[in-house]
């Protein structure tokens, strides 16, 4: 049995993964204005923004795999929490890259914190795609190091 199956053979980890996936995908898609619920529920992805939407989907999916695997690793192997921190940082980079533009979060941040915040949101918006790719890369690295760690530690034990 490989490490992926080892973790997700336990139903509670499937539940955690599902919650993380939907808990990230829906808020991120709403904040990035791919999903609208008012006046009607509608998913709207234009061709020019399709890649950005695909990256949100990929980040949510990877977070839903990586975070439960790390929780498993911590609980079973009593290891440190640093990889969850890295996964969350990856997810935050991906989330803030898209959410801080002309939507309500961007407006709130800029109108509250002024010019400095404006520079930060400009950076996050102008480099949205590269930042999301970095975020995805970070999650992939954490996935492989976690898989390796579970595999090694389980063999030793």
């Amino acid at each position, binding site marked *: 049995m490989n490490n992926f199956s080892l973790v997700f053979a336990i139903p509670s980890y499937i539940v955690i993964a599902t919650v993380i996936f939907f808990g990230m995908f829906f808020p991120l898609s709403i904040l990035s204005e791919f999903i609208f619920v008012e006046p009607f529920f509608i998913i709207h992805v234009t061709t*020019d923004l399709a890649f950005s939407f695909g990256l949100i989907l990929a980040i949510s999916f990877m977070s839903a795999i990586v975070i439960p695997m790390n929780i498993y690793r911590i609980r079973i192997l009593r290891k440190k929490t640093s990889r969850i921190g890295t996964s969350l940082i990856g997810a935050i980079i991906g*989330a803030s890259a898209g959410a801080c533009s002309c939507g*309500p979060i961007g*407006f709130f941040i800029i109108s509250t914190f002024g010019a400095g915040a404006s520079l930060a949101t400009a950076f996050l918006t102008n480099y949205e795609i590269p930042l999301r790719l970095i975020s995805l890369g970070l999650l992939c690295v954490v996935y492989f190091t976690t898989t390796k760690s579970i595999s090694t530690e389980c063999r030793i034990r």
Partner: protein
Amino acid sequence: MNRLIPVIISGIAIALIVGVGFTSYYAQIIEIQELRDKAIDMKKAERNILNLENASPILGSAEAQITIVEFGDYQCELCYSWFHNTRGTIIDNYVDTGKVNIVFVDLAFLGSDSPIAAQATHCANEQGKYWEYHSILYYKQEGIDNGWASKSMLKEYANELKLDSDQFASCIDSAKYAKNVQNSYNAAVKMKVSSTPTFYLFDHENGMVEKISGAQPLSVFVKTIDSML
């Protein structure tokens, strides 16, 4: 314990991002419900809600039954997306047929070039080319504060539209319309508009007001407009 700190900080940051987003979203829903209540008497609603003193000229017939008021920023990529994917069909099917007119209100907040770009459209308006200049900005948009909307580039666009370059340069250099753009921003904030693009659809015959937040697809606009006509 020290290793837990980044996890806790990261968790709080995610919760903050999601929390602020949803708080703003629900505030908007409450706001639209209040607006619907207020809009029973359209004249009253127009007086109280619709302050278009510093807005664009009207695009379309002044006698149209519905006015779409768009709050936008020239550096906003979602405004760009709406301009290129939805606006054209609305103009063909509703504005050109005299059913709807469009007004643009500057909510220039995204960067230091946003208010200058907004002022430039008002300078172009002095020479009767507001909407042509508005369109050229949405064709030229390339991001936020990365040079495409600098003063020198704005003057270039004026040349492309064959505007009187001296008059335009003098207008933009003197920041003649800075106050108007700021007033538009203040009016938008007063109306609780907190993102771009945001649209208010005012039905002058039935006194209905609908708010559409975001670059929503054409089908949402068609359904909303058709329900008013």
